[in-house]
């Protein structure tokens, strides 16, 4: 055990000791991080994922601003009872354009990863205005004020650029037309009419399939684009993008 008895050398030379500590501590970090540099399957390859439309992104920002994540997770775990209730377990790919992601395990309210389309948009609006009018035992606070707050989207182009900076594939057209796309998705018959086709075409091209962009008046008030429009537009698309008919759970690279 000659080597073991030489620790006196390390203990008496502070520089050597510092280098030794750095080497030992970084082993853990290297083992965690190095594989990410060359692995090609940290995220499953799936069909249908596209970036959020500007209106959905604005709605998502409201979701975060209002702290919805404090009570609602967005992660269906691969457990039988959760899959039975909420639908297919969440995939990493479904959060790849989320900055930050909304996973979690703290559920005062139900998981919202697949709430999109489960209930009608009218229900979402009524329920956000007064949760207890529809679910008497609910403890959710009312968000009626979202109906009165006009959506502020002056800086939406920069918002999209920021997302692009961290890896969300927004195209130049998507950014240039962002304001028009908000109008188109929340008021397709009137003010957004000119941008209708470009919104659908650009985001469906990103998704690689049709029927992933829903355009309508979301909050029952077609005269104004409110924060309610944005939030409900976001809620109604959560978990609906991935085409599970083409997802192969058995594929070796999809095993977890």
């Amino acid at each position: 055990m000659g080597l073991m008895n030489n620790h006196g050398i390390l203990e008496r030379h502070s520089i050597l000791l510092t280098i030794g500590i750095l080497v030992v501590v970084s082993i853990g970090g290297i083992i965690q991080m190095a594989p990410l540099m060359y692995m090609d399957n940290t995220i499953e390859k799936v069909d249908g994922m596209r970036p959020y439309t500007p209106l959905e992104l604005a709605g998502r920002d409201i979701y975060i601003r209002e702290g919805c994540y404090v009570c609602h997770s967005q992660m269906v775990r691969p457990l039988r009872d959760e899959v039975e209730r909420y639908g297919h377990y969440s995939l990493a790919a479904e959060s790849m354009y989320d900055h930050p992601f909304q996973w979690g395990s703290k559920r005062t309210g139900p998981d919202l990863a697949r709430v999109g389309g489960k209930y009608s948009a009218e229900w979402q609006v009524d329920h956000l205005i007064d949760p207890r009018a529809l679910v008497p035992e609910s403890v959710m606070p009312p968000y009626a004020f979202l109906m009165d707050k006009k959506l502020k989207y002056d800086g939406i182009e920069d918002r999209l650029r920021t997302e692009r900076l961290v890896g969300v594939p927004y195209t130049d057209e998507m950014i240039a037309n962002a304001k028009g796309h908000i109008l188109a998705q929340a008021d397709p018959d009137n003010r957004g009419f000119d941008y209708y086709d470009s919104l659908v075409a650009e985001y469906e091209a990103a998704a690689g399939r049709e029927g992933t962009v829903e355009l309508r008046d979301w909050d029952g008030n077609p005269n104004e684009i409110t924060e309610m429009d944005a939030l409900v537009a976001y809620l109604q698309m959560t978990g609906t993008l991935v085409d599970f008919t083409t997802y192969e759970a058995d594929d070796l690279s999809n095993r977890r």
Partner: protein
Amino acid sequence: MTDERRDIDDHSGIETTGHSWDGIKELNNPLPRWWLYIWYATIAWAIVYMIFMPALPALPGLGTNTTGLRNHSDRDLVAVAVADLKAARVDQSATLLEASLEEIETDRNLQQFALAMGESLFGDNCATCHGAGGRGAVGYPSLADDVWLWDGTLDGIEFTLRHGIRHDGDDETRFSIMPAFGRDGLLNAAEVGALSQHVLMLAGREADVEEAKIGAGLFSIHCATCHGDMGQGDRTQGAPNLTDTEWLYGDSEGEIYATIYNARNSHMPAWQDRLDDASIKALAVYVHTLGGGE
């Protein structure tokens, strides 16, 4: 380390580390044996775990993570668990699938199974809008009474469940549109007010007779095609009966005015893509038995 080099502290009789700082020495109290052995055991366990379970994220040149000897996958396990659950249900479900809705409702065993299944499905998927036990809410029809907008028969309920009401993604969905008479400028505010009075009258409520007379003329032009000449409603279009005491969106003068002004076109999602056939049948039977099935 030989015995000659051991240095025993005189006072406590415990070996020291041999280091001396200004004559002060440090006792060498080793870790308790039991603690040390448990620690060694966890190291051994980690190695065993790495062999049997997926552990290493990826080795250079190896595209994927190691799968381990047990080839464990949470995603496989949940697929198996869900398949087991479905298999456990399949006997009863199969009889549900074969039987007609009427048979399910009259056969005691089938009915019991369908109702139990329907109740739990209803609680998660339907009660959010229609309320526990289908008691309904403003804007969300009660399923526990015998007033039906579209169809209260077993087959009708099943059709509604499958295709929804005004559901975008379904070609067979139940569909009709009430125009927003005020908002879209078809009628002015005074005319909407007169119509409200006529509707109040239809329902046998107190109303301004003069106004209602004007309203009656407007009613036959704008409303009667769907709601019928006498306001008796039309189930084929989901147009509610205006002569009864059931009001989905409220029965006050102001609420009726708002309904005519802004229109009401409620929406129910189609469930055939979310729920399997047996579940939909069970739900149809459950809803039918809530109180008002036809």
